[in-house]
């Protein structure tokens, strides 16, 4: 038994928190440093509350998914933002048959 699409190395980055200037600049800047390719991005602001969802590809990346998650979560924490980086399979497995 193998993981479906095991070659996939895409992750979903979610950022939640109070809106502030430069959130996307910060995330995309960090991703570019690590050669992580952004494939899709969407963001909304409701009542000053910022939500961003990003689909990224880690194939060309110079950083492991788990390490990227740790880095962004920690840095987000300092800015008062909740950041999650999760392998896409958790979403495909839950919502797609």
């Amino acid at each position, binding site marked *: *038994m193998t993981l479906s699409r095991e070659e996939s190395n895409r992750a979903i980055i979610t950022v939640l928190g109070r809106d502030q200037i430069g959130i996307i600049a910060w995330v995309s800047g960090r991703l570019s440093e690590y050669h992580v390719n952004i*494939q899709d991005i*969407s963001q909304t602001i409701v009542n000053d509350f910022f939500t961003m969802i990003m689909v990224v590809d880690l194939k060309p990346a110079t950083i492991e*998914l788990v390490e990227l998650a740790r880095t962004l979560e920690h840095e987000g924490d300092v800015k008062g933002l909740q950041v999650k*980086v*999760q*392998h896409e399979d*958790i979403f495909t*497995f839950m919502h797609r048959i």
Partner: protein
Amino acid sequence: MTITFAREEIQQTLKMIQEENLDIRTITMGISLLDCGSEDIKRMEQKIYDKIVKNAGELVAVGEQISARYGIPIINKRVSVTPIAIAANHLNSEEMVRIAKVLDRAAKEIGVNFIGGFSALVHKGFTSGDLALIDAIPQALSETEFVCSSVNIGTTKTGINMDAVLKMGKVILKSAQLTAEQDGIAAAKLVVFCNAPEDNPFMAGAFHGVGEPECVINVGVSGPGVVANVVKKYPEADFGELSNLIKQTAFKITRMGELIGRAASKVLDVPFGIVDLSLAPTPAIGDSVAEILENMGLERCGTHGTTAALAMLNDAVKKGGAMASSHVGGLSGAFIPVSEDAGMVKAVEVGALSLDKLEAMTCVCSVGLDMIALPGDVSAETIAAIIADEAAIGMINKKTTAVRLIPAIGKKAGDQVEFGGLLGGAPVMAIHPFSSEMFINRGGRIPAPLISLSN
């Protein structure tokens, strides 16, 4: 191939994990010890220790790595082994205690929080090794930290071994007495089964059955909080709609188990056994099976209607979960452990939930009378009679039933016991004051029921 994700789906998954306590309850590695036998006890101890550490040495690290990769908590990493009464059948009682201590040391070395399989299967009778193991249980559990024990005393095919039932009544009492200062914690690590499954990943009843492969990964999912929130959100739904909502939710929860099981199996290079699609509560607020039943419209869990609510819940969980996994097994159903479920504890405290009602509830859900504190002056015969009742339900209904009772030494009904951690705490429950002694002391076997003649 690019899959686009709906924003709502991503947010729903995050909400389930962050706010509704969705987690993987356990990754349990089953390890066969059948090749660890030796006439020399020291050699046997070494072989068992080495085999567990060799196979499961990476289990905890891999579990943490997978948890970080997918962003979902994996609460427990555990090991189950071949029932020691089979793997070490030639040993005497003192030597059995030594084996328990080896299991404990191995568990500590690899960092798992429980190791199951200090077990015997005696539904039709005892071998000498079975007797030695059962005699060793109280000392083994009171002198180890991580070892869990289980004994199967009945099956639908064979009936109930009532001599074993009485023995287990005594063993439970003695285990509690030996750990009286910790509210009888040794008894909380001991399960008495009817129709025990051989691939159950949940403690304290996990063991690696003899029909299992050399090594296997089984996964237990959780998620009562997710189901409770869905039920709460639709107060107007009729039972057909409600069942559908629970099925959809159970499907999503079980998919997480399937994902993590496959990932762990791949990284560890060990075959993936089953997903146990149980709803397993924890003492955390919002992680309660009782709360689901109350959200269905019962003022308190345990009142009239509770059995019907639980039956519907249990069935919907199975229907939704079965489709989500390639192999479902273990206990698979809703658990109703009292001390591990804040809603159950509350229901007992306000007088809504009694031992008799819990027994009725076990007819329609997974497992049985679980994590229930009894008055300290309870007799071994009364404990045995409670086990016999529960085993009878399992035997006749062709299902697993289990009993995990903790006599609270020096305490009476209404007093509080505290086990800490995932085991929680609970009020001591009242039992019937009338004796079952003569009945229990008849001995022998309750014959297999007519439904066992299915060939």
